[in-house]
């Protein structure tokens, strides 16, 4: 029973990565109607930027947490301005293929310069060590990850659902032409949204740097799982992707406990099942 609690908690930790990443994907899909295949690569960039900041600039984890998303976010906005914006109005397929190409390029370049075995990134001193919860040993850093991502997720949710800027975003998702005709610079907003979504991915990257090796391919396989999360939650649904992210982390954790061999596949099985019952995901709008 104790072990089960521990697994639930560990699942929640993984879920927080899924939530952050799928949240970014959902935001981007909502506004740009693009399945951002480059999300995994940008997540990886987040981790790398944190590494560079530390090793080249001596800039610590806390600043990296702020700076890396901004830097990667700006990179994302450049991508949007120079490439993605030309796809407005085209079939989904082209956005998927373009971002797939971008992912290959980014990952390829990093692999060339940094090899594939990865670079070390240490846990910041303040978060070292762990505490005994009675049923498990919880590294403080992991606890921090859960709490911090939960806060970021909720803040993003608040930003989009409860603020004026969010109202613009939601309105532009429904009818960009009309919102533009109200005097809002929608193209700029789209660029910023892409930056935001990408920044969330980079943030997840920084968070994961001390846990996982900083490797060029760290996002390549993860992204497929996150796609599944987004699809299960319903494409474009903010709350849907946050909840599904955490929930799937927990489900995966439980699978690791009861039937570890299936822990990689459980997400896909779930996705197939969900889509069979609800063709647009749990909370999704029609495609």
């Amino acid at each position, binding site marked *: 029973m104790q072990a089960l609690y521990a697994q639930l908690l560990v699942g929640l930790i993984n879920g927080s990565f899924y939530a952050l990443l799928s949240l970014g994907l959902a935001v981007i899909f909502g506004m740009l109607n693009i399945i951002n295949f480059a999300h995994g690569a940008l997540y990886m960039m987040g981790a790398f930027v944190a590494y560079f900041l530390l090793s080249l600039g001596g800039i610590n984890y806390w600043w990296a947490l702020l700076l890396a998303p901004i830097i990667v976010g700006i990179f994302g906005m450049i991508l949007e301005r120079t490439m993605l914006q030309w796809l407005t109005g085209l079939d989904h397929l082209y956005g998927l293929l373009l971002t797939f190409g971008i992912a290959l390029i980014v990952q390829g370049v990093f692999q060339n310069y940094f090899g594939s075995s990865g670079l070390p990134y240490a846990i910041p001193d303040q978060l070292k060590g762990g505490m005994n919860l009675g049923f498990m040993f919880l590294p403080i850093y992991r606890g921090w990850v859960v709490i911090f991502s939960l806060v970021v997720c909720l803040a993003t949710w608040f930003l989009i659902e409860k603020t004026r800027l969010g109202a613009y975003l939601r309105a532009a998702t429904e009818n960009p032409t009309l919102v533009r005709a109200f005097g*809002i610079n929608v193209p700029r907003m789209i660029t910023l949204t892409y930056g935001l979504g990408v920044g969330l991915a980079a943030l997840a990257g920084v968070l994961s740097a001390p846990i996982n090796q900083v490797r060029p391919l760290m996002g390549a396989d993860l992204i497929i799982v996150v796609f599944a999360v987004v699809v299960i939650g319903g494409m474009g649904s903010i709350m849907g992707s946050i909840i599904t992210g955490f929930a799937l982390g927990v489900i995966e954790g439980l699978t690791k406990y009861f039937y570890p061999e299936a822990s990689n596949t459980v997400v896909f099985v779930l996705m197939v099942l969900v889509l069979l019952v609800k063709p647009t995901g749990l909370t999704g709008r029609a495609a």
Partner: protein
Amino acid sequence: MNAGEVVTLLGRNGAGKTTTLKSIMGIIGKRTGSVKFNNQEIIRATSDKIARMGIAFCPEERGIFSSLDVRENLLLPPVVRAGGLPLEQIFDLFPNLKERLNSQGTKLSGGEQQMLAIARILRTGASFLMLDEPTEGLAPVIIQQIGHTIARLKKEGFTILLVEQNFRFASTVADRYYVVEHGKIIDGFSNAELAANMDKLHTYLGV
């Protein structure tokens, strides 16, 4: 069009009335010719810039956002210049809206949606309003109410370009009329000349 005037575009479905409004607003891709607003050429401007100059557009399908509640819908268009109606006055015009501020935008009845769609562009300070078929699909009582509103707006000094099929409604508010067919203005007359042009109009509109 002169300031403070109410002008109606008449014409059959698909004659190009809505397209005219959209071209002025800069929503339609390729435009040629010239659109001048306050003596400023705006044919090349993007729609957000045009809106910032003080033109507001209320589309035929009303464009109420379902993911926003009534308050958010109402507050959505940014204030582009001073002189917009304050909220109290808007609620004064449309008392229904005040009661339903927290409902989801598309849960409102058709009439309320139309009111919301008009209300939200009054706030922004735009002086030139383009209303695309504001009476469409609404009950007579409500049409009447909207007529009153337009009349009041006119009194407030708004310039209004109206697209209407409901000819009877248009006649209660408009100063002048243009008839549009196949994307061209084929006729124009003032309210005073209306009676004289009635027969012509019937052929144009096919009613």
